[in-house]
Structures are given as C-alpha cells and as structure tokens.
C-alpha cells in the first residue's frame, strides 16, 4: 500500500514513524517548507542563538532512509480525490492509496492596511524566521501585534538581540482570554520588567510604507505613530486549507474529521493543526493547534491505517508555555473567569513570579483544574486527580505529590493550603512532599482501584 503524508510537521512525521513501526507500507512525506522535520516550537531558540537548525531537528538525517520513509520537497497544488492523485508545483503527479493531510496552520492576517509590505511577517514557517533574520540587521524597532503565545515569543526573540520592541495587545491584559486576572497581571509585570513597550488595549490601525515597499511605521487605535522597520503579525493561526477549498473535501474552518480522523473522502485523513474534529470530547475544542495533539493524532491515525480503527482520545486538557522567564503549565479546565459553580483557590509568591491555582466545583468539591506559574507540576498526578474528580480536601493534603520542581527548590504547597484554611476555617495540613517513590505508590494505588 502506498501512503502519502502531506506535511512534515510533528503530526505527519509521527504518523510516518508509527506506520513504519506497525507496517511495511510504502511511505512518502511531502513538504514545501523544509527538507527535514524540525520542531516548530523551537523556532525562537534558533533566532536567539540557543540552538542551530540541526539542533531543532529531532532525528538525524540518516533516520529517514534507515526507516524507509521517503521525503519529497515539493508543493502540492491540487488533489484529485476521485483519481487519488496529487499534483505538485514541480509538475509531478503522485498516486496514493491512503492520504494523510497534515498541512498545519498559517498566520492570521486581518486585512490591515499595509499588511503585505516588506518587513511585515508572521511567525510560523522556517521562512518567516529567515525573514526576521534578514530584517534584524540595524533594525530600529520591532512592533508585535497580537498578545498570544507566538507574540510574546517574538517579543523575546527581538529583545534577545537588543532590538527595542513594542508589543500591541488588544485585550486589557496579556492573554486574558485564557489566563485568570492574577496570572495575566503577573505576565504584564514581567513583560515590562524586561523593558518591552507593552501597550494594552491597543490595536494596529495601519502599517505605513516607506521606501521600496518597506514598512516604516505603524499607527495604533490610540492615535500613536510608532516608527519601526519590522511588524510581527501574531494574531493567532488558522488551518492552512486555502489550497483545498472548492474541492470535494468537507471543510469548515479546518478539514472536518470524525473521531477516527477520517475526512469525508475515502482513504483521506486529516491530523494536526489543520484538522477540525466534528464532535470533540467534552472539555476539548474542535481545533487545537498544539504540539501534543498533532503527535497524538499522528499515532492514532497510524493505528487506524495499519491495525483497527482507533478513535482519537486526547484525554484531559493540558498545555504549557514560557513567558520570558516564567514557565506556565495548565492541567484540566481553568477559565479566565470561573463560572459561579466553581471556586478558585489562588496563592502567589511575594515576589510575584510564582503562583499556584486550583479550581474546584463548589458543590461536589471535585478539583477541575490546576494552573501553575513558575512552578512545575507532574502531569500524571494532576491527571489522576482530575480524572477521578478527587475532592479538593483530599487533593490539598497530598498536593506535594504533584510538585515537579528540581531538588532543593522550595515547595509552596503549604502556603496554598494555608490560604484555603484561611478562606474556609478548615485546618488542613500538607502531608506529602514531592518525590518519585511516593508518586509511584500513589499512581499504582489509583491504578488498581480504578
């Protein structure tokens, strides 16, 4: 059987690897972006000089031959689903028995005047990184538009090169559509601490052209004109499905798939950023443009193709990021404003760079989410508690188990518990400290009882 995978990002490559593990099918991976798979998540570190291109490629170059995964650098311009063939920009016609669409996302552009000028870029593809590099020489200022995860990464990137950065954020506080107010305020402070010009409640109005079609400055909704040689457009991403529109493929925002990641076309699957799940599991969204979902979908689709139909099951939501120097982790459901039915227990370190938040159901007491800033928590432990709907008063005394910070780091769980005691008049104490032996005991016990 001949399997074509369109896209060599994490989802396509994971699918290829697992198909190879499970079968002897012929595999070809096509990409127009790069010869070899690299970690998109690490683009910023290449720009900042932490790593080279080679270092962000998780597999050595011999890996592909050895595993009989053929790589083709070309752009697919058209797909004929009836004839089961792809047309490429280089004029090749390629037939498939099974096709996996793993075409990823693209940066959003909202029709701003001047958005196509030279020096205006998103950050998604390797070529965007090269563009940033080209424009960085002698750059007077970079303006970043859009206060999300990629925006703050771009701010950090330019900042690392001592290039002044202005950061326009539409919301009244950084990423407050996801982060609760205290955490969001913490990141505002941290951005300012790094000397980034953070402009909250400020939108881009227009990008002004200079010589040779280059951008010269921007104007904002607050009436400011900011001279800048580079504008970073980081107002989110959306599925990269433009070239598939007006085909027989069923597309909404992304490529629509069922729980087996099958599209409406026979033998065609979609995974990763470009897939839109018709009926997502409770607590999950239909499009989730994050690394691990791509990886999980790749693994799942490989099983479906090589073994028996396997439903995509991402489990309980989790994610992580890093805002300059502050790490962020979330497990379960944390809302920027929790609904009335939920309580939110929050502790913040006096220095304002670490916090722990637990959300729980007021009525049943079941813990519903963990939000961490500057502190690491262990995925498996949080997941067990969330999965079992464990009571807040059972979680709190054992909360040390979840701590995943390195040895000798202070543990702050008792401070969170003191806050709970203060609010409720209870008298809970933290009984467990972090450490693998206790965690293993806990995980095994839960296993056998569930």
């Amino acid at each position, binding site marked *: 059987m001949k399997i074509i995978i369109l896209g060599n990002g994490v989802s396509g490559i994971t699918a290829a690897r697992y198909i190879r593990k499970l079968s002897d099918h012929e595999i070809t991976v096509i990409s127009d972006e790069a010869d070899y798979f690299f*970690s998109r998540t*690490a683009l910023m*570190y*290449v720009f*900042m*000089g*932490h*790593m*080279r*291109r*080679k*270092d*962000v*490629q*998780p597999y*050595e170059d011999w890996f592909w031959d050895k595993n009989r995964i053929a790589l083709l650098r070309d752009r697919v311009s058209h797909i004929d689903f009836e004839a089961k063939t792809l047309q490429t920009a280089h004029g090749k016609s390629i037939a498939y028995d099974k096709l996996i669409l793993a075409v990823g996302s693209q940066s959003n552009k909202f029709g701003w005047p001047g958005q196509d000028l030279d020096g205006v870029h998103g950050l998604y593809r390797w070529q965007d*990184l*090269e563009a940033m*590099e*080209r424009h*960085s020489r*002698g750059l007077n200022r970079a303006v970043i538009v859009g206060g999300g995860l990629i925006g703050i990464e771009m701010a950090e990137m330019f900042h*690392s*090169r*001592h290039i002044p950065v202005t950061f326009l954020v539409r919301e009244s506080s950084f990423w407050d559509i996801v982060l609760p107010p205290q955490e969001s305020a913490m990141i505002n402070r941290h951005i300012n601490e*790094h000397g980034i010009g953070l402009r909250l409640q400020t939108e881009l109005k227009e990008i002004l052209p200079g010589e040779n079609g280059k951008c010269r400055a921007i104007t904002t909704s607050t009436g400011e004109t900011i001279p800048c040689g580079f504008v970073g457009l980081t107002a989110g991403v959306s599925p990269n499905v433009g070239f598939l529109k007006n085909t027989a493929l069923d597309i909404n925002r992304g490529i629509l798939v069922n729980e087996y990641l099958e599209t409406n076309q026979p033998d065609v699957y979609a995974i990763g950023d470009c897939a839109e799940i018709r009926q997502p599991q409770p607590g999950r969204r239909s499009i989730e443009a994050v*690394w*691990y979902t791509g*990886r*999980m979908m790749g*693994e*799942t689709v490989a*099983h479906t193709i090589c073994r028996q139909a*396997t439903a995509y*099951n*991402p*489990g309980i939501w*989790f994610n*992580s*990021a890093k805002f*300059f*120097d502050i*790490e962020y*982790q979330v497990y379960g459901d944390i809302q920027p404003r929790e609904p009335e039915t939920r309580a939110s227990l929050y502790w913040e370190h006096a220095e304002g760079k670490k916090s722990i938040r637990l959300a729980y159901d007021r009525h049943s007491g079941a813990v519903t989410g963990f939000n961490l800033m500057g502190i*690491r*928590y*262990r*995925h*498996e432990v949080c997941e067990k508690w969330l999965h079992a709907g464990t009571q807040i008063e059972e979680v709190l005394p054992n909360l040390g188990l979840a701590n*995943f910070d*390195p*040895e*000798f*780091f202070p543990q702050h769980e008792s401070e969170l518990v003191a806050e709970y005691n203060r609010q409720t008049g209870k008298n809970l104490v933290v009984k467990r400290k972090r450490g*693998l*032996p206790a*965690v*293993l005991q806990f*995980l095994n016990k839960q*296993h056998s009882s569930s």
Partner: protein
Amino acid sequence: MQNESLSISVPSPAYTSAKQKIAIALAGIGILLVLVVWAAGRVVAPVPISLAALGFVLAGVLVFVREEYLKYPEGIKNNGAWFRGLTARGVWGWLLGVLITGFYVCLYWFPQYLAGLIQLFDPFSRLLRDRAADQWFVYGAFYTAAVLFMGIKFIYKYRHNPYQRLRTFSVMFFQLGFAFLIPGLLLRLQHPEIYFTYFWPLSYYQGTPMAYQGYSGSGLGTFFFFFGLAMFFIGTPILTYFFGKRWYCSWVCGCGGLAETAGDPFRHLSDKSLTAWKIERWMIHSILAFVVLMTALLWINVATGKSIFQEYSQLFYKMYSFAIGSVFSGVVGVGFYPLLGSRVWCRFGCPMAAWLGIWQKKKSKFRITVNGGQCISCGNCSTYCEMGIDVRAYAQKGQDVVRASCVGCGICSAVCPRGVLRLEGANSHPPAFLSRTL
C-alpha cells in the same frame, strides 16, 4: 565567523555590549599579564603581578556577571551561545583552544618553558606548602582559580536554581579544599601530598604497587591507599545506587568541577550523534579494561618477584600515562573545551566514569523522569547536555533517561522551557504517558 545557526546571514554583531567588552578586556589584561610572564620566562615582582593578574580576571568576571546576568531578570542565559565566536568554534574559540593546549603540552613535556610562571607562583607555594613551586603547583593554582572564578559566574548565571547553586558551591569547595589547600598543607606538615577526592582508576597511580610503596611509613598515606580502594569497591556502588554517579561527577570530582564551571560556556559543543555514543561506549570501557589490566600486571609483578611481566607492565604504565593520563585527560580533555565541549574526557575517557556509569546503568535509583506529555521536542535539553545525551529522544517518548554517562548536572532540567525533566530516585518509573494515550 561562520554562522552555523541560520543558513543565511551572520546575526548582528551587537551581541557583545560595551560593558561586556569592558569585562572581557579586564579579564584579558589579567590573562595577558600571565602570558607575558610565560613568554618572558621570568618575573621581577611575582607577588604584585600574580595578585594583579588574579585581581583583573576576578574583576572581569564580576563585571560580566553584573552586565550579563544581574541586570536582567533571573532565568536561562543562553542568548547568542551559537553566535559568539568564543562559544561557537569561531576564531576566539580556536585561539583559546590553542592556548590551553599549548599550556598542557608545556606542562607535561616541556616544563622548562613554564619557568616564568613557576617563579610567579613561587611565593604562594612557599606560603602554602613551605617549599618552592614547580609546574604542578602552577597547574593546581590555575585550575583552582578557574574553578572558583568561573564557579562564581556560573552561580550567578543560575541564581534562580538552588540545585545548580549548591552543586557548584560543592565543586568549588572540593577543588579549593581537597585538591589544593589540603595537599599543600600536608606537604608543609611533611606528609605525602594526598588528593582525597581522586581515587584509582581516575588517578591511575593510586592503585599501583608504586603508590603503596611510596606511602610506606606514612599512616595517612596507607590509610588513603585503602580508603581509595574502598571507595572504588564499596563506596561507588553504594553512593551510586542512591544518588547516581552525580555524587562524584558533578558534585565532587575536580575534572567535573572544571567542566561544570570553566567548561560551562562550551557545554553545547558536545556531539549528540548516535555515532558519538557508539564511540563513547567502546572507548570508555576499553580504557577501564586497560587500566584494570595494567594495574593487575603491576601487582602480579610484585607478587611474583618482579619477573614475568616486568617490562610489559612498565611499558603499559608508561603508555597509559602518556596517552591517557596526559594527552587525553589534559591536552584533549581540557584544551579542546572550546572545540568539542567540556566533558570530552569524562565522556570518552575517564575509567572512573566508566565504573560509575556501569553502576548507574545497572543498579541505581537515579533516573531523569519525564513529565507526562509536556515535551515539545524543542531540543534544548539535548543541546545543553554536556555529555552529548540526546535527552529529547527520551523526553518526547515519555521515557525515563537512564544512561551510564549522565553526570546529573541537571542542566537539561534547568533549560527545559516546559518543565519536563526531573532528576530523582526510585526503583521503577511512572507508566509512559504516550502509551496510555491510545
């Protein structure tokens, strides 16, 4: 300078700020003073000049710390590591490599060319040891200064990380105390010069009959001889079982101490390829086998009245001390820091590391656990692993890292931007996250 980072241009040269340049210039003056004395072959006023040299270097380090670390919020400080010539095998890196290599060549084979430096440190030697300096004292002094000064830098670089601070404090303490002051004081007190933190087979001489005979008449020496053997046969397995080889390699050992401090700016230069791992396993175990065989032959000679293997074993010993003891551990091991990274010797050569590694791999609680599905395969952990372990290959599979070579420096865990890695101890490991997702 060739830029290996991006396929395109060299990033803006604004990488080094004016104040950083001042810092480098200050340290440079100190180093230049030493170079002048080295080249001149003699020195007029050793005390002021040596103090000035040390003072300038220290001042440079402190200014650098202030400009590079303290002015910014605490966090990971790897910006530009692959852009700067010094840390990315550029011209400065090569020059530094040649300089250190040259020093080692003189040290081992042409000490007459170190006459100026020996004079420079003579007053210190008399103060500490009550005897004239020799090239080994000069070496010890440089070594200790490097560990201390660069240790200070490292502590500030990782000021947010208690594990890194403590560990660095520990190697500084052991270097200054056990590898410099105590051996010197022992000499002053007419005892043998004992380095309590170097055991056979890293210190290959310590296990030989020559060492044993050399200690005869000294209770302390004889004690140390057996202490060293006990550390090898009993101490290493027990301590490694509980803590992993890090109890030695990144907390106590002097070679490790230098790598973790002076070598830290070069840690990303280690080779991560599978080929390098294969060479490593083959090489380090061969060297351990060689040292064991060599030592055994020497003892058989003694037991059999110095007859059968006499010539061969002495030849082996000479070969080993030339090829491994001098060329590998010194010239290549340290001289090539700016080219091959900071742990070349520890990874490919050290027989003690091989022995610790066998125990770490086969019988130890130590492991690096992976935090569920949080890994984003970015590669920071692998890049900054000085032992060239492809940590990411484990992390992205959700698999514990259990590797003979891991020295437990904890840098992979520190640089991971997603909080994925933790050094810890237990006899088994959490269920692999990824296998549970299906």
